[in-house]
C-alpha cells in the first residue's frame, strides 16, 4: 500500500508544461505496452512450445495454425465492434452454423451455383440474423446478453430444423466449393487472404471514417454521443449487422474448409472469439479496442489451440484454459485501468 502525500505533488508553475507532456507519454505508454507485451508473450510461448515439441515451428504446422486462426480472427473483428459498444454477442456460433448449413445444402442441391455466390448468400443470411439481433438490442432496448442468449438458441434450433438433424458431408459438396476454404493463392491459403482483406477494410473503417469513429464514441459515452448528434441506436444496430455478416461469411468458409456442415457446428466458438478480443485489450467497459490487439489475441488463442495436443496436454483441458484466459485477461485489464485512472487522479491534483 503506497503512502503518497497529496502535498508532494505541488509544482512551481514553470514545470507545468513538462508535467503535461509526461501525462501523455505515460498513458499512451501503458496502452502501447500492451500490444508489445502481447507480442513478446506470444514469441515466448512459441519458444517454450518449440522446446517441448520441435514440430511446432515447422512451416506445415504454422500454416495449419494460421489457417485455423483466420476464421477466428475474422470473427474477432466483428466482436471487437460489439464489445466496444459495451455489448456482447453469444449468438455468432449459431449464426455461423445456420449460414454454413444453408450454404452447404444449397451447394449439395444446386451444385451449379458458383461458390462466390454461395459466399454472398451466407453473408447475406448473417446480415439478416445480425439485423434482427441489432433491432432487438438497439431499437427495443433488450440487454445484449439476453437478446443474444435467446437468438443463439433460435438460430441453432433453425439450423437443426432446416437440416432435419442430418449432416452435409464432403461428398455432397462440389470440389469448387471446397476449394473456397482449402485452396491457395501464391501458396497462401484463401482464408488468410480473406482475413487480411477484412482487416484492411476494418482498419480503414475504424480509423478513417466517421461511422467507425462514432462506434468508439457511442461506446465511450452514449449520452455525449447523442448530444453530438450521433444516433446511438443506428450505430448499435450497424455493429450487430456487421457482426452478423462476418459470422455468415465465416459460416460458409468454415463448412468449405472442414467440408462438413452439422447442427452443432461452431458450438461454443463465440467464447474463443470473446477470449481473443479480451486478451487483445478490448475493454468490456466499452470505448477501447485496437485491431492490432485483437489480431494478436486471435493468434495467441490459435497457438494455444494448436499447441495443446503437441505438448501432450489433453484436449479436455482446453476449455478450462480458455476460461482462465478470459478471466485473467479481464482482471488484468481492470487492474491496469485502475492504475491508469489512479495516475490521472494524481496528476489532476496539481
Amino acid at each position: 500500500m503506497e503512502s503518497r502525500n497529496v502535498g508532494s505533488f505541488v509544482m512551481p508553475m514553470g514545470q507545468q508544461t513538462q508535467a503535461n507532456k509526461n501525462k501523455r507519454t505515460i498513458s499512451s505508454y501503458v496502452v502501447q505496452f500492451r500490444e508489445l507485451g502481447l507480442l513478446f508473450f506470444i514469441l515466448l510461448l512459441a519458444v517454450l512450445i518449440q522446446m517441448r515439441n520441435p514440430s511446432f515451428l515447422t512451416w506445415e504446422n504454422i500454416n495449419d495454425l494460421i489457417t485455423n486462426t483466420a476464421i477466428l480472427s475474422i470473427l474477432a473483428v466483428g466482436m471487437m465492434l460489439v464489445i466496444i459498444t459495451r455489448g456482447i454477442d453469444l449468438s455468432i456460433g449459431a449464426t455461423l452454423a445456420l449460414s454454413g448449413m444453408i450454404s452447404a445444402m444449397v451447394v449439395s442441391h444446386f451444385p451449379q451455383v458458383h461458390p462466390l455466390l454461395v459466399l454472398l448468400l451466407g453473408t447475406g443470411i448473417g446480415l439478416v440474423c445480425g439485423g434482427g439481433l441489432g433491432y432487438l438490442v438497439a431499437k427495443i432496448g433488450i440487454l445484449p446478453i439476453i437478446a443474444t442468449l435467446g437468438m443463439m438458441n433460435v438460430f441453432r434450433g433453425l439450423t437443426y430444423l432446416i437440416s432435419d438433424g442430418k449432416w452435409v458431408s464432403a461428398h455432397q459438396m462440389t470440389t469448387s466449393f471446397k476449394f473456397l476454404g482449402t485452396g491457395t493463392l501464391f501458396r497462401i491459403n484463401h482464408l488468410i487472404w480473406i482475413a487480411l482483406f477484412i482487416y484492411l477494410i476494418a482498419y480503414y473503417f475504424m480509423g478513417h471514417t466517421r461511422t467507425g469513429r462514432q462506434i468508439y464514441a457511442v461506446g465511450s459515452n452514449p449520452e455525449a454521443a447523442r448530444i453530438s448528434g450521433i444516433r446511438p441506436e443506428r450505430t448499435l444496430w450497424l455493429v450487430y449487422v456487421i457482426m452478423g455478416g462476418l459470422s455468415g461469411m465465416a459460416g460458409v468458409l468454415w463448412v468449405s474448409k472442414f467440408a462438413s456442415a452439422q447442427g452443432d457446428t461452431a458450438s461454443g466458438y463465440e467464447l474463443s472469439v470473446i477470449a481473443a478480443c479480451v486478451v487483445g485489450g478490448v475493454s468490456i467497459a466499452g470505448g477501447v479496442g485496437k485491431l492490432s490487439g485483437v489480431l494478436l489475441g486471435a493468434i495467441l488463442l490459435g497457438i494455444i489451440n494448436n499447441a495443446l495436443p503437441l505438448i501432450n496436454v489433453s484436449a479436455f483441458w482446453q476449455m478450462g484454459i480458455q476460461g482462465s484466459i478470459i478471466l485473467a485477461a479481464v482482471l488484468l485489464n481492470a487492474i491496469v485501468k485502475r492504475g491508469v485512472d489512479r495516475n490521472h487522479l494524481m496528476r489532476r491534483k496539481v
Partner: protein
Amino acid sequence: MSEYILELNGITKVFPGVRALDNVYFKLKPGEIHALMGENGAGKSTFIKVITGVYEANEGEMLLNGKTVNFRNPNEAKQAGIAAIYQHVTCYPDLSVTENIFMGHEKIATGSKRILWKDMHREAERLLRELGASFSSKTQMGALSVAEQQIVEIAKALSVNAKIIIMDEPTAALTTRESEELYRIAEQLRDAGAAIIFISHRFEDMYRLASKVTVFRDSKYIGTWRVNEISNKELIVAMVGREITQLFPKKEAQIGEEVLRVEGLGRTGYFTDISFSLRRGEVIGLTGLVGSGRTEVCDSLFGIHPYDRGKVILKGRVIKTISPSQSMHSGIGYLPEDRQKQGLILDWGIGDNITLPSLKRISFKGFTSKSKETDMAKRLAEKVGVKAKTIFDLASSLSGGNQQKVVFAKLLTTDLDVIILDEPTKGVDVGAKYAIYEIINELAAQGYGIIIVSSEMPEIIGMCDRVEVMREGRITAKLSGTNISQEAILAAAMAEPATSMAQR
C-alpha cells in the same frame, strides 16, 4: 436588423406539477458578457436548456438575430451557433482531445469521406494554443484535469464558430490561477465578437467579467441591471427576495461537550492532514470549491471509502469507519449530496424509503413488520413536515424540498450523535429551505453535532458557528465568529496550496 443577437420573450416551461420557467425575459448583445444569477432551483439550468434546444418552451418566443427560431433538438441549436460549457464536462474519456473537439463535425475529404486526421490535429492544436492550453491535441481526454477539459469544451465551441457561448458555473472547480485563465479566455472571445452568458454563484466572477446581470428567482424574471449600477446587497435581495439576515432561523442550541474529533485524517489522492473537532449543539461548515475534497472527507467519515491515515474519535472512543452501516451504528449519519441518486429510491414510497436504514431494528428475527414500519414512517414524516397525501406516495412524485425532508427523516430512525449534511438545500425552493434550516437548528438543539457541507456562501455564513475551508485536499482556513465572511472563505478556497500554507 436587431441590435440583439439573442432575445427571449415570455418564455414559460412547464413540467408535470412544476413551473420551471414562468414568463422570463432575456436579451443578449453581441460582444457582451451577460451574467445570469439566481439561487439553486431558480430556473437557470432550465433556461439554458431551452436556449440550447434540449427543451422546447411551452410559451414565448426566441429570436436569433431578430428572426424567430424554434430548436427541436440540441443539434439545431449547435448549428445555429449556440454552444454551452458546463461544470461537469460530458466528453469521450477514451478518445483524444481532437476527436472530442470534432466529434459530429469531423473534417472529411470531399470524395472518399475519409477523415483528415492531419488537418484536424493541426486545427485542434491551433485552437488549443489560442486558448493558452499547454497540452497536446493527441492527449487522451480522460487524462486531463477539469480545467483543461473545460478549455477543450471552449475549443469545441470555437470549432463550430459559436457566436453565443454559455458558461454554466465554469469556475466552480477552478483555482484562482485557472479562473484567471478562464476570465482571460472569456474576454478574448468577447473581444472577437462572441456573446457570452455567464452563470455563476460568485459575485466576483460577475463583477470581473460581466457588463450586465439578469436575475431569476423562483422561475420568474426579476430584472436586468448594468453591473456597475447594482450593489451586492441589492443583488442578494433580488436573488433571494429577503435580506440575508431574515433567511435563517435563530439558532438557540447550547453548545456542549466534544462529540467528534478528527485527527490527521488522510486518504491518498483525495485529502490529507484533516483535523477538526465538533461539539454537541454545534454546527460547523465544511466548504471549498468543487473538488476540494469536502465530500470525500465526509465519505470517509461515513465509511463509504475508508481513509488511509489518521484517527476518528467519537464520544471519546476511537472508531474505525469502514462501512455506512457500521458508521450509523457508531452514531454518524449522512445526508448525501445527490438525493435522487444517493439519498432516495425514487420508485419506492415515502415510508419504504424512510424505514430502509433501520429495517433490522424494527424487525422480528429478520422478518419485516409492516405495521411497525408504517408507524415509524408516519411519525418521522410528520416530524420533518413532509407534505404528501400518504406515506405510500412515491418519492418521485415529491418536490425537491419534500424529497430532502424524506432523506432527513431517514436520519432520525437511528440513534445518532453526529449528522453530516452534504448540500442540504440544493435544488430546494425558498419556503422548504427555511423549513430545513429549522430542522437543522432543532437537531442542534437536541444535542446533535452537525457538519454542513455547502457551496452556498449565505448558507454557510448564516447557519454555522465555525467554518473549515478546504482547498485541494487540505484545510486551508479555520474561521469562527466574526471572521466568517464571504471574502475570507473565498480567499481560502481559491488559494494555491503554497500561498495558503504561508497564510497559516
